[in-house]
Structures are given as structure tokens and as C-alpha cells.
């Protein structure tokens, strides 16, 4: 057990410590990140008991794979986000969206006018925030429905009532605009 791990706060450093087998580091990582990750899972799967399962799976995966993370040194928080999102989408696929929610307000947050301001003002979000402003409302809305709410092309189509081809094209153009902006 790595006693020093409890004093660490950097996510990337903690993941590396987990990779060396420190359960204390995993616990610290849970303390720091579980609310954020659970929030992401809950938003996608909608049901607390399923989101809790997803969170468990996520931390078991972190424990098993943290040693491999160190090799590439990607951003720790992004790595965690990726794991919890894919776990959540997997749960949605297995269980079926309709089993998970009959919430008529699903996805409405993507319509909020101040959505850009809500994007985390953290430094790392700076470029994304700047570039997100270049998208038109529909592109922005589709990308948020996909990334944050976990909806597929066809689910977005049903949700906002436009043809599938239109949704695909909005997302596509949104991604191209974002990429050019983020790379510049």
C-alpha cells in the first residue's frame, strides 16, 4: 500500500501509482473523480443503479489497466472520461434506451442558450469553448446530445425530429469546423 498516494492530487500521477499496484491511489482517485464520472454515467444511462454498476466497472477497468496507461501518458482525466463513457454507452446498448428512460426532458439541456458558458471554464476547456462558438446552434446541439447524453445518430433524429441525413451532416460539419479550429 502506497501511503504517499493519499497525499497526491494529480489524476495522471494517481493513475500511474495505481499502475504500480497502489490501492490507496485508486481510493484517492475515487475520492477525486467519482462524482464527476458518476455524473457522466448517470446522464447517459439515466438510472442510478445502472450508473453505479457502470462506475464500478470503470474503476475495476482502471485498476486492471492503469499500468498500460503510463506508457502513452495521455491526459489522465480524458482517459477516465473515455472509459466511463464507453462503459455507459455499452450499458445503454445492452439494456436498450427505452428500458432506461421514459424521461420526456431527455436531452433538453442541449437546448439551453447558455450552454457555451456551462462548458467548464477550466484552462483545458479554453480552446474547446472558443471553437464551440464557431458552430451553429444545430451542430452544437447534436454534438452535445451525442457526447453528453450518449445518443446515437438515429436517437438524435427521433429526438429533434429532422431526417437522419441532416443530423449526420450537422455532426459532420460540426466536427470539421471544430477540428480546424482546435488544430489552429
Amino acid at each position: 500500500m502506497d501511503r504517499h498516494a493519499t497525499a497526491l492530487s494529480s489524476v495522471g500521477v494517481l493513475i500511474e501509482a495505481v499502475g504500480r499496484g497502489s490501492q490507496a491511489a485508486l481510493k484517492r482517485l475515487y475520492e477525486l473523480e467519482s462524482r464527476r464520472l458518476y455524473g457522466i454515467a448517470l446522464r447517459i444511462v439515466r438510472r442510478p443503479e445502472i450508473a453505479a454498476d457502470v462506475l464500478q466497472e470503470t474503476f475495476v477497468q482502471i485498476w486492471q489497466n492503469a499500468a498500460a496507461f503510463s506508457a502513452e501518458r495521455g491526459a489522465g482525466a480524458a482517459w477516465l472520461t473515455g472509459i466511463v463513457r464507453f462503459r455507459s454507452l455499452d450499458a445503454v446498448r445492452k439494456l436498450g434506451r427505452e428500458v432506461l428512460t421514459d424521461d420526456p426532458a431527455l436531452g433538453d439541456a442541449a437546448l439551453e442558450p447558455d450552454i457555451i458558458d456551462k462548458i467548464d471554464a477550466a484552462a483545458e476547456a479554453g480552446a474547446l469553448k472558443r471553437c464551440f462558438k464557431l458552430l451553429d446552434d444545430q451542430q452544437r446541439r447534436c454534438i452535445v446530445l451525442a457526447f453528453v447524453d450518449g445518443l446515437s445518430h438515429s436517437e438524435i433524429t427521433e429526438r429533434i425530429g429532422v431526417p437522419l441525413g441532416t443530423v449526420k451532416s450537422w455532426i459532420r460539419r460540426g466536427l470539421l469546423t471544430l477540428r480546424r479550429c482546435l488544430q489552429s
Partner: protein
Amino acid sequence: MIPENPDELHVLAGEYVLGVLDEAEASEIAGALASHSELRRAVMFWEEQLHPLAELAGPTTPPPGTWEAIEARIAGQALRAPAPGFWNNLALWRWSTAGLAAAAASLALWIAVAPAPGPSFVAVLRPPQQDQASWVAAADRSGLVVRAVSAAAAPNERVFELWAIVPGAARPRSLGVIPANGELKLSPLPPDLRDGVTLAISVEPLGGSPTQQPTGPVVFVGIVTAV
């Protein structure tokens, strides 16, 4: 088909990270990640760039008992794989079925999607409490190979025997005695070999353990990781 045009490639990678593709499309990308470095870079680009958007979900406190459940699930897996620096030793992985860097880059993606190229696993075994990598195991659909990294010899009149410890299983299962040349090949892949299984090597009498369970000391351990 993974497009060659950089714009098309980036759009596809972005759609993949957003999660809007259907399962067949997503599987195709997952299958191509290990060998397609441009695609891998594009997927990583989107993962890193888009992840702040997830903050829009808003933090929520998980139900009580969640950490305890996680702790219980990893309890049987306390023996860990290698020190991080070891994973950078690419020479060691040259013969493995997929580069480990690929595994790191695309881990989150591999976890969720269909097993397009078939399962692929690696494990590094070392003495308990030590960093010295002593054996490497690599497995794919066709079977399992375990090899000594450095010259490893069992004590006189003894042999090394390989065991699989499946999380939740009551006892280890023998995978066989390792030949004196330090290489054990098993084909097909033992059915319960998967992510999270612990491999252990014990010292046994000639011919292997007479009891179907380890009788001598466990001298090397490692955890199987999907790549």
C-alpha cells in the same frame, strides 16, 4: 473501410468518439485501431479535445457502498502487473500480437466494443514484491505462449508449473508444467483465460503438482491484461 483522406478520417474518428456510429461501424474502427496509427491519433485527439464537454453532465455523488463494492471486486486481483517503465520495453513486445502502445492509446475503446480481431492478452510475471520481469505471456485466439525473459531454471529436481487464478474461482487451475527450455505453448487458448486473471508459477516436484493444487512456493505472478 477506413478513409485515407485526413478530413474523412477525422470525421469518422470524431463520430466514433461521440458514440453515434452503429455497432458494425464502431467495431470496424475498434478493430483497425491497433494497426492504424493515424486513426489512433485521430481518436486520441477527439478524446482529449472533447472530454471537457462531459462536464455538462454535472457531478453527482454515487450511491453509498459503491467504493466498497469496487474494493471487493478488486480484492482477488491484488497482485499487480509490472512497473510502468517496463511497458516501454518495446523489444520485449516485438513478438506479441499487438503493440502495447496501441493498447494504452485505445484502451477505453477496446473495453466496450466488439472483439473484432479476437481476444488478445498479455501478462508479465515477476517475483512477488519485486519489479524484475521474469516471464511474459501472450495469448490470442489461437493459444497461449509463456516464455522466460531471462534464463530461469527451477531448483534441482523441481519444475515450474503454471497456474491460472480466475477472479471468484475457489482455487487455481493448472495450465501445465513449463518445459526446461523455459517456453510453454498451449493451444487452443484455455477457456477461462481473460482480462483480470492472475497467472502464477510455482515450484513443484518433477512431473508437476501431485494434488492439482500448488504445493511449492509461488515464485512468479502477473495479471492478464487485454490489449
